[in-house]
């Protein structure tokens, strides 16, 4: 596979994964799968966000 194509596929995949996860979480939180799933989705989203925000500094030099 040409190098530029490989990079494009890699970027597209990198974009698709969070989109799919985010969409699923959004549908869950607005109650599509029921109120208790919505509560669970909210708790999961807040816990996940708190964990990632609290533990990963996201530091890297500006390109």
């Amino acid at each position, binding site marked *: 596979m040409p190098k530029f194509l490989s990079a494009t596929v890699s970027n597209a995949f990198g974009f698709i994964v969070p989109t799919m996860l*985010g969409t699923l979480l*959004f549908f869950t*939180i607005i109650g*599509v799968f029921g109120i208790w799933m*919505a509560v669970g989705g909210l708790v999961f989203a*807040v816990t*996940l*966000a708190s964990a990632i925000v609290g533990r990963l*500094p996201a530091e890297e030099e*500006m390109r």
Partner: protein
Amino acid sequence: MSLNPATLARVQFAFTVSFHIIFPTMSIGLAMFLAVVEGLWLKTKDAIYLQIYRFWLSIFAMGFGVGVVTGLVLSFEFGLGFARFAQLAGPAIGPLIALEVLTSFFLEAGFLGIMLFGMHRVGPKLHYLATCMVALGTLLSASWILAANSWMQTPDGVVVKDGRLVVTNWWHVINNPSWLFRLPHMLTAAYLTASFLVAGVGAWYLLRGEHLAFAKKSVALGTAFATILIAGQVFIGDILYGTMLKHQPSKMQAAEGFWEKQSPSPAPYYWIIVPDQKRQRNRFAFGIPYLGSIWLTHSLRGSVDGLKNTPPDRQPTMGMVFYGFRIMYGIAILMFAVATASLWLRWKRCLFTNRWFLRCLVVMTPSGIVATLGGWYLAETGRQPWVIFGLLKTIDAVSPVPAQTLLATLIAFVCIYAFFMAAFLFFVLRTIRRGPGLSPSHAEASGSLKNALRPQVLDSANANAVLGS
């Protein structure tokens, strides 16, 4: 052309309240943000938090001032444009407005001076207390105003006796059926507004390669708050939707853009419609198939109630309600997407380097304000033709004032508010362009935190010594 006093009164109130709501939304959000940032500064002693605090404090102060002035106008407009509403609803609304003044205004007024000018004059704990009290004041203010507005949406605790409202249960007036859901929805909207403001300004500096430490911390803080808040906001919004569907079905019927008593099955989710209120149909509609059933009925083939379930003389104007809702909801979806992307980029450790994401954050800077305006248009136009839902129609609430008077005051408001907005934007954009300041003031440069915050009050005993030195 004859001028209609009822239309002019509505246009005037819509204009002044739309202008006003921008500033409390910012100041409620920024006050809480400042309290968090000052707390982080006191805990970590990291000077970058102080720099962020000072930068946003000046913008908060300007927004707070404009918000108070434009808020006072609204009380007078009840008399000018809607005297019959004030006469009827005064026994319920009046005490709530008075309680706002007694609790939140007094609290804010008492501590705002210390917050703005007391950094070098009081100890750090007292200054932090002042910031927290101002944040609490803004929260209380929102609570009382939301209680009053929610009572107009879902009135409770009153009876009509001899053409006047008599309060039978104060707790029900305050804790009316929609207040407990609308209050957290509005507060979260304000906090989200502040989060995207902070993150957007930080992203702008990162793209320009300026004030990098300040910018990174701003983006990190703004996206962190936004990520947690938007998840809660979407959840609260969905619960509020169900509540309003129960208490104000006409509003939610108009918000979804369907006319027939039952929508097609499966129902699409409309994003663009051209409604024809007179013929009770859409001239044009564009939507995503199945999504209406999935989102609104939580099933693949569910139907949604249309506006024909409400008699024409009790229907709100569909276009305004629909687009108010779509603006708010569309922006909420974008916020959720940005929040998810920020988590992903943080996980990949490239939150500050992905230029596409930083550009998105810059574009999203005013998104909270636009979404809040959309939400209030949904709330207020969706309540029509009632000013107090089910009790008093807007047309019956208008003052017996000549149209010329209302037109003259409307023109005056437009001119004065245009000046306010120009001055505010000039000040804010200049503050952002100048940046957070490269050198800290002498007090913070003095070494220890204790010295930095030592009171600098001159009394008669040491004034001469200081002046003589």
